């Protein structure tokens, strides 16, 4: 079945950040330098070509962009400055919007305004709920302060109520993520008629799981030594983020306590490490994106910034909240908690399913799917070889 070429696709991709699209004359240099290229995966060249030719179908079922580690070697060595690495990044943005069946993410990527608007609306919604379900620490301060000098945060914002909100949000997020991943699976595996994957095959790669779920490892192979620092920090950030996310969504009771534990109590220690992780990460990535010292931080889509900023604010308010609590300043606790939620919720709601954050899900899954594909291809080879040997 021959596909029809389409000039508009690359114009569409323009909105996702791709710029120098028509420079490429397919010298294949990128593929040559790329560390992720393997026998059956000629990227970034193949992918770039699909974009240039506007082969929507091939592109949407293409998994390669997710295997790209954005080491940037291709862009630095490209003779035409076609910037394939950034092209791959843009395609990832594009694919996120493709996998998102709701179509919301597409809107976000296409319009800054809309995204910001949504963020504010969510913030306001959160504020209203907050004001409705919490009580302002008015009157005598002493009644808001616990025996060990910390503010009685659960009296102000009872963890049960917050937790309730968390669960609703988490529910929505998980639903969206799962459905999106399914859609991704549909696009990448089902729509690719060239391969067949049996039910049992899905469970074969289990052995390779650890390898699969550490995409960062690939950076080690890149020339850019800086990137080792990069991936360590990125890993740190990711883990910290994950930790805090799990804690607040599932163990808020344990985390949000009135009593102030000693500094080496796991609750505080864990909190601090995670916070440091977030903070260092944010600063590192922020500086990268501003001084553009790395290939992968040269070009920033506004969604990259929104994610960073929101994350930063969340972290900051989180820290303040913590100190106001342990040093018993209920009013400030009340306010910072409000702000904290007003930033945190929109961040999660917008970024997790519809934007930057979602790569945390897609990356590992793409590796998983890629692995499946490779196995399938290998299998087909063996079969066809046997076939050819027989006759």
């Amino acid at each position: 079945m021959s596909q029809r070429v389409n000039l508009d696709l690359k114009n569409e991709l323009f909105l996702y950040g791709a710029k120098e699209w028509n420079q490429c004359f397919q010298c294949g240099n990128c593929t040559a330098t790329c560390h992720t290229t393997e026998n059956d995966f000629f990227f970034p060249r193949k992918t770039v070509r699909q974009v240039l030719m506007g082969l929507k179908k091939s592109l949407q079922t293409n998994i390669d962009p997710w295997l790209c580690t954005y080491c940037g070697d291709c862009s630095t060595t490209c003779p035409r400055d076609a910037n394939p690495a950034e092209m791959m990044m843009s395609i990832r943005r594009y694919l996120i919007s493709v996998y998102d069946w709701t179509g919301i993410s597409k809107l976000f990527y296409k319009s800054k305004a809309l995204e910001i608007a949504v963020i504010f609306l969510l913030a306001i919604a959160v504020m209203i709920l907050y004001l409705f379900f919490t009580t302002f620490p008015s009157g005598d301060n002493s009644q808001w302060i616990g025996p060990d000098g910390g503010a009685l945060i659960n009296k102000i914002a009872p963890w049960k109520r917050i937790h309730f909100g968390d669960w609703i949000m988490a529910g929505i997020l998980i639903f969206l993520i799962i459905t999106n991943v399914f859609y991704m699976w549909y696009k990448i595996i089902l729509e690719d008629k060239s391969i067949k994957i049996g039910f049992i095959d899905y469970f074969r790669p289990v052995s390779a799981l650890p390898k699969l779920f550490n995409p960062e490892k690939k950076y080690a192979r890149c020339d850019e030594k800086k990137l080792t620092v990069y991936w360590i920090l990125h890993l740190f950030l990711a883990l910290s983020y994950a930790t805090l996310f799990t804690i607040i969504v599932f163990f808020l009771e344990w985390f949000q306590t009135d009593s102030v534990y000693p500094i080496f109590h796991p609750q505080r220690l864990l909190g601090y490490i995670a916070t440091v992780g977030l903070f260092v990460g944010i600063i590192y990535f922020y500086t990268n994106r501003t001084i553009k010292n790395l290939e992968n931080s040269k070009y920033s889509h506004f969604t990259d910034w929104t994610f960073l900023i929101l994350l930063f604010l969340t972290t900051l308010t989180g820290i303040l909240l913590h100190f106001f609590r342990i040093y018993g300043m209920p009013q400030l606790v009340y306010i910072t908690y409000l702000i904290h939620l007003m930033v945190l919720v929109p961040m999660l709601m917008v970024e997790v399913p519809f934007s930057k954050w979602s790569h945390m899900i897609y990356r590992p899954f793409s590796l998983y799917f890629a692995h499946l594909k490779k196995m399938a291809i290998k299998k087909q080879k063996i079969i066809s070889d046997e076939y050819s040997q027989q006759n």
Partner: protein
Amino acid sequence: MEEKRIGVYICWCGTNIANMVDVEALSKEMQSLPNVVISKDYKYMCSDPGQDIIVNDIKEYKLNRIVVAACSPRMHEITFRKALETAGLNPYMFEMANIREHASWVHTDRNETTGKARDLIAAAIARVQWHESLEKRIAGVNPATLIIGGGISGISAALEIANAGKQVYLIEKSGTLGGIAAGIDLTYPFLNSAKQMIDHKINTVMNHPMISVYLNAEVKPEFGKKIVGLVGNFETTIKSNGEETKLNFGNVIVATGLKPFDAQKVINYGYGKLPNVVTSVDFEKILKSGVIITRDGRVPKDIAIIHCVGSRNENYNAYCSRTCCMTALKYVNQIKSALPKTNIYDIYSDMRAFGKGSEELYSITSRKNMMFLTFDHKENLPQIKQASYEDPFNLLIEFKEKFSGESIEVPADMVILMVGMEAHDDAKQIAHDVGISLCGNRFFIERHPKLDPVATTTDGVYVVGTCQSPKDIPDSVSQARAAAARVLASILVGKVEVEVTTASVNEEVCCGCQTCISVCPYTAISYSVEDKVSKVNEILCKGCGTCSSACPTGAIRSKHFTDQQILSQIEGMMSASKSKKNLIEIEET
């Protein structure tokens, strides 16, 4: 008969010969051959010191015959003849053995090659014994020049010569001057109007006092041949608009130009059947008309351009026509400026952007909002189909995209076929008329592909423009002007050396059987009734020697290629290899 004193000189040509031929051994060996007075070998015989060796030896050893074993005589025979002259020896007392092109460069076994070189040199020595001094003959040069073809090349050459105050006869087969270039709208890479450029030139030509233009002209054959005579003094009769004119001229510039490839030959493209499939030639017309619309009068939303139509494909023409790629990019720019909204698909094989401004044009164009697609120019060419009615476009091009390996279809309202250049159908006839030869692709052969791309193997005949090879306008013009310079130079010198190695009749022996007369392609031989013998007009004779081999009485000798000379060359050659040969046969039996 004076005593024969032969000098033999064997060239190393650096390592070119010495690597494959044992030069020293040979030069020793040759010493022992009859009449060889001295035999030497040297690194570069053609170098000045090399020539000096010959000159000095001629004086010192009173040599009267020289053999040089080196490269091809087509390369350096002239050089060494000059050397002989400087030494006061007749240049024709010289023979060259070609042990480079015909030995050291083409063989792999050193012994064999040396053996072959030995034979060739021995042959040359045996031949040179019978060489005789021939006197140079000088003929004047007619200052007029005939230029065949009134395209951009012809015009440029004509103006160059005429502006130098020399008469030019410009004959053009069609009714107008300007040729293909006149049919072009804009020229790449700088997108200047061709019209402005050409029209001006044409006017100057038409009104130039020194140029007489003959339109609708054809050359009338005389004795089966259309242009008779030789460098400096050609003559012909041309027929222009019914009336005949006899022309005399000293030089000929052939600028007959090209013929666009007939796109109908490529069935896949359905040119001629599908109205909206047009060739680049047609599209130039469309552009000139000022408005780009399809045959059915719509503004095209998608335009596809297909490169290498009839070029770089064994089934049509194996060569590259050089100009199509850039012309295609030119179209992209022109279409984009006329119809910014139109989608353009450029389906090419390799983008050949050589020459000033071309690569720039490519990178500028590649930034435009258009699509480059690649196809395999050798097999399964794109297939152009009529699109179905519900489709919003007119044509559908299906092919396997080379880079992505995807089989794709490209929508188009109009397809432009970039047709290549071909030699004219009557190229062979023209070549015959002016006495030059064709290469495999039926373009005229220049004298030397690198060192002499303007002249031909026939003195006084020059080839310029696309009749010699596919070219763009700048190349054609520069070649034309180069030719003009050559012609002017020969006019300036005012005299040319006429072929010396002509045929001559020994009237003592000629019995007047007249076999020779009809043999001569130049009608140089005539029968004199009173003397009852044939006579050769040495001005017309070009020395092919066909008459002397046709003469049953052996009365006609073709100078420098006499039976005696060639026979002894054969004997010399064989005598050298005989000894070796017998030995082998003894071993066998």
